[in-house]
């Protein structure tokens, strides 16, 4: 077997049982790794009782998976998955960093975590030495303190394992902040500072398992591949294609904070009340003043779109975060009425320290601010916080409450959709019209109303099996550039920001050179990726236990997307209901789903998913 370490580490935190798990070649050939394999494991182990499994309960499974591309394809990520406490389906959520490299070098393709630890714990992996350690000294601690503790302690322990080795390089670490510990649905699984797997809400899943961190150190080589020369030649070519993307290398996504507002009218502004702004002070050059002009890349990355920002002076000095990237410029900036780089960097830092997902956490802050503006939430409700647009200190204070589930934060910690339901009940009004989410997942900062964003299709979120996740949006055709391509990225596990110039057929060629296993585009689109899509769709529709999505009815855009854009060059533009319904139906058909968006028995049988068919019949989703 090439391209794989050949085994997965399985840890049951309840019994403290640790074992190696292997998957058959067939499973790996069909599901590859990352998101695909996670989907298979989750269906296999939890499918029958899916709707009863609480994502934040001990029964849920957390998966941290690499793929065969890890270490070879330029741009290294690791895929976090499980039953999502946001969508109640499966989301493949990726985070950059060296964790996947260390894990593979330790001899593992992934970690599968079940059960719940009795007390705060973290997992320590150093090659084949696996320990479940006490995390009580860092429980409740934010990012910086957590990392400092784990890095110092782990280096010492690795030195004990290899006493005469010389200086030991720090291990790779995935961890959660208070937001994860307190089982919020808006918490990320974090690497380094500011590198988060946010979509899905798996920080809360870790917290629910009393799992503060996973520390990994591997001393072995990255697993060998089938045709090394070809793999390295192709990787070099891929790198070179990225070196040419000068603009992206120079600015990363940080140019978006101005661009997507001023140019494409697709940036959330004040809880998506508009998608346009023209704030010159938010241009990338203005952000540059606060950068230390340092690119911040991860293993093997030719692009390094992330930049490190550090505020060295002023009232927020000490704040460290990434650029911020575009999503945070939007969700912790424009969407809160914040239009200064300094405040945006500070708030991003606060959010990162707390282990909040910048998008999901930012979205609840935006929702709360609009409800405050409309007088639905009062200063009293907010424990004295005056949540005016642009009041960065107020948002920082509320973020802390959300992460710690204090006061109103306990409700907001449920994420935009559930928070709106609960607050609506409390206040006796319907608040869902203020929520921009898809299947419980706050939508990425790319609106579709203007039609000018790179995500422009009206079904982009409505039909995605990962809801509001803008990195896995739906489009037609289903194959290249659509969600089946996203499934490839998240399953072979590589960064989509290094693949702008790389076509799917090249990725498949690369896959063959790595694994030595045959694959064609046809086979991928019409069989393997489609199978993963069906499984994700099925589990999304099964949902539960707290929320279930109605097929078709909930495969819709949020109410705000049906309002006309109120300002900017695209003022008045909105989506066309008829056109949307036609696209949606076309998408359902392309995906092999019936007119309600439920996988057809015929589709499932062709893909060998008879058990899915039986389950969907059981719950009367199909006849």
């Amino acid at each position: 077997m090439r391209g794989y370490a050949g085994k997965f580490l399985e840890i049951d935190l309840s019994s403290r049982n640790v074992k190696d798990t292997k998957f058959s070649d067939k499973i790996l050939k069909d599901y590859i790794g990352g998101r695909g394999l996670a989907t298979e494991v989750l269906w296999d182990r939890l499918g029958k009782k899916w709707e009863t499994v609480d994502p934040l309960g001990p029964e849920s499974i957390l998966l941290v998976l690499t793929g065969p591309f890890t270490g070879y394809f330029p741009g290294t990520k690791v895929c976090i998955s499980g039953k999502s406490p946001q969508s109640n389906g499966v989301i493949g959520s990726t985070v950059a960093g060296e964790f996947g490299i260390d894990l593979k070098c330790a001899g593992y393709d992934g970690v599968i975590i079940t059960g719940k630890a009795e007390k705060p714990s973290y997992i320590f992996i150093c090659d084949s030495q696996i320990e479940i350690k006490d995390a009580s000294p860092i429980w409740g601690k934010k990012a910086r303190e957590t990392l400092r503790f784990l890095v110092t302690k782990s280096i010492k322990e690795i030195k004990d394992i290899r006493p005469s080795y010389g200086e030991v390089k720090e291990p790779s670490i995935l961890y959660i902040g208070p937001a994860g510990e307190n089982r919020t649905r808006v918490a990320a699984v974090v690497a380094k500072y500011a590198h988060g797997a946010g979509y899905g809400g798996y920080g809360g899943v870790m917290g629910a398992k009393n799992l503060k961190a996973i520390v990994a150190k591997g001393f072995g080589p990255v697993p060998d591949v089938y045709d090394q020369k070809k793999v390295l030649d192709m990787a070099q070519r891929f790198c070179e294609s990225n070196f040419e993307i000068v603009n992206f290398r120079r600015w990363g996504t940080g140019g978006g904070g101005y661009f997507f507002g001023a140019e494409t009218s697709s940036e959330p502004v004040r809880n998506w009340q508009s998608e346009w702004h023209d704030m010159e002070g938010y241009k990338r050059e203005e952000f540059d003043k606060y950068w230390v002009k340092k690119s911040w890349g991860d293993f093997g990355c030719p692009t390094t779109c992330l930049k490190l920002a550090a505020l060295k002076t002023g009232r927020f000095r000490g704040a460290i975060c990434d650029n911020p990237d575009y999503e945070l410029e939007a969700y912790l900036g424009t969407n809160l009425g914040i239009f200064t780089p300094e405040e945006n960097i500070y708030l991003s830092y606060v959010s990162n320290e707390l282990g909040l997902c910048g998008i999901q956490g930012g979205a609840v802050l935006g929702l709360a601010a609009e409800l405050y503006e409309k007088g639905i939430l009062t200063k009293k409700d907010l424990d004295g916080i005056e949540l005016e647009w642009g009041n960065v200190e107020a948002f920082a204070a509320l973020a802390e409450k959300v992460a710690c589930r204090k006061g109103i934060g306990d409700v907001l910690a449920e994420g935009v959709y559930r928070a709106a339901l609960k607050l609506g009940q409390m206040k006796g009004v319907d608040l869902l019209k203020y929520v921009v989410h898809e299947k419980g997942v706050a939508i990425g900062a790319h609106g579709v109303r203007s039609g000018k964003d790179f995500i422009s299709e009206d079904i982009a979120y409505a039909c995605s099996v990962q809801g509001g996740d803008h990195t896995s949006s739906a489009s037609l055709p289903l194959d290249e550039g659509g969600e089946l391509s996203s499934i490839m990225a998240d399953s072979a596990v590589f960064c989509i920001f290094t693949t702008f110039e790389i076509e799917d057929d090249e990725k498949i060629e690369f896959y063959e050179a790595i694994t030595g296993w045959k694959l064609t585009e046809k086979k991928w689109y019409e069989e393997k990726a489609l199978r993963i899509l069906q499984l994700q769709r099925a589990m999304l529709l099964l949902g539960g236990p707290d929320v279930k999505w109605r097929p078709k009815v909930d495969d819709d855009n949020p109410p705000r997307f049906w309002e006309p854009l109120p300002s900017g060059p695209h003022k008045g533009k909105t989506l066309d209901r008829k056109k949307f319904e036609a696209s949606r139906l076309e998408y359902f058909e392309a995906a092999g789903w019936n007119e309600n968006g439920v996988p057809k028995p015929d589709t499932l049988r062709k893909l060998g998913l008879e058990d899915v068919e039986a389950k969907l019949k059981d719950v009367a989703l199909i006849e």
Partner: protein
Amino acid sequence: MSREKLVWIQRNYENCSGCRRCEIACTLHHEERIWPEASRIRIFMIVPGVEIPHLCFQCEDYPCVEACSPGALSVNTQTGAVNVDASKCTACSLCIEACPGSVPHLHPEGNYIVICDLCDGKPKCVKACQEGGWNALILIPRGKGVSYKTLAKTPQKLTREAAKEIFGEETAKEVTD
């Protein structure tokens, strides 16, 4: 030794993007596979955002060679690099202790020390870094009358210094001490 041909790898820590393509290039050359821990250049990241490329400084008095009692280390007169004779190395770690930068480390799977050999004067790590346009590593002629030993520091010390530049003194203290 003809000094004119000698080279040195200059490091600009704040330019390092942390892409680690130097580690990949190094181990493909020396180990014929990607193997971060076997790399003669290692990127230390004790604090996120502060990536420190750490490799032999080629001190002018070569304290590691001096300290090596089994005679496994020698100076390559062509390049100025430290050569390791793995068959003679006993992994006694005397060289690590002698190095002012604590640079040498054991090969992760063999019982011998690995030290940058400058790839016979054409270091692959520099090539990878230059290709990326980072300029964290630059190949320069080895200077006369320059003390490279004064630049030889441990990853911890280099991290503290770079963090001060990048984050400011106050924050650097908080994240590194």
